[in-house]
């Protein structure tokens, strides 16, 4: 199901945390656009650029206003996030290799504009807290090292702008689900890392990320059935607030084939 109620023009009118005038990139070597400090330890994940998620509806908006940033369209992949065993919501993944040299900064995707803050959102769309945006930032926190991003300490005015953007974004239950699902996914993965591989957090950063990559790609950091149950629970809670079917058409009820039509008991 594509998002239909998000006003992307209004969303994109909010100032991004990493504004063009903040020159934050000079102090971190464009870490958000090119997290070399992490990716230099990887064998499979791209070592250049960043993998970005584009929300449903946002892709159509970007294509309508000016097109995807140069080079992103070729790497576009659809990712189906399960709501339950019978329903999914599509998001889109692109690999951006522009490393901060995107020409039309006002059309940077939402994920680039919200970084480094991640909203903790309740099923009714209220933002109840803030967390580090990316999984890597959460892993830095687990390793007790500072994130390379200098914006991790932001001013109250910027937080206020950020919260206003979130209020607009979370009018749409699809966006509420996707952001809650992303947070759940990160939490799930980190919990499994701590529980099943506790010795890993004592490794040096370079070895940690190298081993993390392999654990991730062999599916060791997620319990798919547990995660699906968690996502279904999130979806249920959202649809209690926003209404049944607000995350997409409900599956057709299964017909009991043991009863013939017109038969009276």
């Amino acid at each position, binding site marked *: 199901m594509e998002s239909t109620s998000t006003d992307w023009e209004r969303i994109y009118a909010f100032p991004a945390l990493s504004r063009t005038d903040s020159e934050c990139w000079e102090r971190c070597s464009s870490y958000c656009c090119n997290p070399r400090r992490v990716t230099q330890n990887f*064998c*499979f994940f*791209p070592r250049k650029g960043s993998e970005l998620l584009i929300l449903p509806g946002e892709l159509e908006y970007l294509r309508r206003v000016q097109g995807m940033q140069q080079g992103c369209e070729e790497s576009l992949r659809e990712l189906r996030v399960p709501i339950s065993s019978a329903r999914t919501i599509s998001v889109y*993944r692109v690999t951006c290799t522009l490393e901060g040299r995107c020409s039309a900064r006002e059309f940077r995707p939402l994920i680039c504009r919200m970084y480094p803050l991640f909203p903790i959102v309740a099923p009714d769309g209220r933002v109840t807290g803030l967390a580090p945006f990316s999984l890597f930032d959460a892993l830095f926190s687990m390793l007790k090292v500072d994130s390379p991003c200098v914006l991790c300490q932001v001013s109250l005015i910027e937080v206020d702008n950020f919260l206003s953007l979130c209020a607009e974004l979370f009018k749409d239950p699809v966006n509420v689900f996707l952001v809650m699902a992303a947070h759940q996914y990160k939490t799930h993965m980190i919990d499994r890392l701590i529980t099943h591989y506790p010795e890993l957090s004592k490794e040096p950063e370079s070895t940690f990320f190298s*081993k993390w990559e392999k*654990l991730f*790609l*062999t599916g060791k950091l997620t319990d798919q059935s547990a995660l699906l149950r968690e996502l279904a629970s999130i979806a249920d809670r959202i649809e209690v607030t926003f209404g049944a079917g607000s995350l997409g058409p409900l599956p057709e009820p299964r017909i009991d084939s043991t009863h013939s039509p017109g038969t009276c008991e």
Partner: protein
Amino acid sequence: MTAIDNTQLPESQIEEFLKQLLGRSDRVNWDHQLLDEGLIVSMEILSLVTFLEERFQIAIDPFEISPDSFSSIRAMAEFVRSKRQS
């Protein structure tokens, strides 16, 4: 996904899975450098690992995987054979 014939060579089964994963109908050369040429990216590795483990009944140690093992269909099939023999 449509069923894959498990009587065929591992290379054929892997090719069929890859075609379905990538939404392709044309053949994928068994020696095509999948990672180098960007045909598969990180998330496809995750799907491939799950497929190889389930289809060929092997257990893949996370710390034994390398880009060489997934560089091509033929490389993946060789990896599967080596796991079955060990």
